[in-house]
């Protein structure tokens, strides 16, 4: 779920954009460097952006029987690197706003922060930790994708709670409310995404 256009107050919208900017800038620098070393990377990252967009439109069954879309942050972070995912995810989020009315322009910064920064970096960190801990590859991939997915939505809940603290319980209570709606309902979907990502890597390993 992306935060819709106009939902965040100006200060928050601007704040999250400023928070995202260095990550996107760093991502762009990495991407530029990769292209300079290997010109084919320009096309690769372009197609990867389209791939990320298309993947997020995939209708995935959840363990609870409902349907949802994968965030693709885990898959993307491992395949293309977490730094590249910030500009890639940024473009995908802009396209989702303009082509699907999903998300928004003023909330782009906030959505980039949760989907294209926290998600991929969490997934990548979990993946590396799992490798370092010598966990089986499949377990590492599962944890990376599932936790990347969950943390994305936890971040969204934090963003909403900061913008709309509960009149009685303040930030904490508000966080519990939003997390209850966005992050907790996401747990079965995160498990699905984790499983899906494992299947993807298993299939890729066989090619």
């Amino acid at each position, binding site marked *: 779920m992306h935060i819709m*256009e106009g939902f965040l107050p100006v200060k928050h919208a601007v704040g999250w954009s400023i928070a995202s900017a260095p990550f996107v800038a760093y991502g762009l620098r990495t991407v530029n460097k990769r292209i300079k070393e290997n010109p084919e990377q320009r096309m690769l990252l372009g197609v990867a952006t389209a791939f990320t967009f298309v993947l997020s*439109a995939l209708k995935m069954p959840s363990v609870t029987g409902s349907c949802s879309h994968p965030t693709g942050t885990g898959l993307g972070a491992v395949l293309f690197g977490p730094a590249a995912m910030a500009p890639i995810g940024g473009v995908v989020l802009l396209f989702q706003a303009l082509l699907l009315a999903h998300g928004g322009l003023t909330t782009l910064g906030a959505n980039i922060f949760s989907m294209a920064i926290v998600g991929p970096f969490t997934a990548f960190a979990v993946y590396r930790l799992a490798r370092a801990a010598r966990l089986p590859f499949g377990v590492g991939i599962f944890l990376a994708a599932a936790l990347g997915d969950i943390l994305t939505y936890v971040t969204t809940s934090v963003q909403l709670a900061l913008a709309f603290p509960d009149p009685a319980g303040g930030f904490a209570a508000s966080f519990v409310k939003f997390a209850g709606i966005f992050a907790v309902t996401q747990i079965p979907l995160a498990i699905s995404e984790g499983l899906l990502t494992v299947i993807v890597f298993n299939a890729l390993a066989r090619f």
Partner: protein
Amino acid sequence: MLLERYAYTNRWRRVDPAAKGLFSLCGLTAVFMATGPAAAVPAVALVATTLVGTGMPLKSYLRVAAPALLFLATSALTLLVSLRPGGPSGIVLSLVPAELPHAALVCTRSLGGLAALLFLALTTPMNDIIALLRRLKTPEVLLDLMTLCYRMLFVLSEAMHDMHTAQAARLGHAGPRRTLRSLGILAANLTMQVWQRSLALHHGALARTSDGPLRFLEPEYPHSRASLATAALGGGGLIVLAVVTI
């Protein structure tokens, strides 16, 4: 993608995207400047302008807006509910009527923002938006990613759709477990295609004497100045409406 279709067929398609972007931006400003339910005034004006400009029926407009409206409904409800510790279950949920004006403001602002976004999205094809971003000196790599993403997302989604259909024809989507497995295989195939297709594109670009960034001829728009002036006037109007009705 319904939005796309209107972006290409609407009456204002040939209008300079800078003008449409400016109007949209003014709309957003107006919506954010309104401190009360007054935000509804520019919102309604934006919706009306969009419907007139694109000539799309209200029903399609609502369909396009549906996912955002769903988000708004759940989130706005959350604002009206308060949580505090206590009671037998540890937490008490209660409705807070005092929050109603605040929630109403957020709703009108969001609806207005959505209307401004939809104005741009429904009147301006993505290529024009990318061309506009180029004029605004967006980093070149980002523009390349956008151009390639926009072209290839149709190619990849067609490939995905074909694979999905082929899997269904061989019963790959009978039951959730099989579906998840089939989708995993599908995504893996699509992943492979990312590399194959990007190499093919790389060759294609080389054959057309490319030596790096993708360069294209900027599109030209007739009466660019006049439309910019009109947009500024209309957009200014929106802002005035928002400020006056406070």
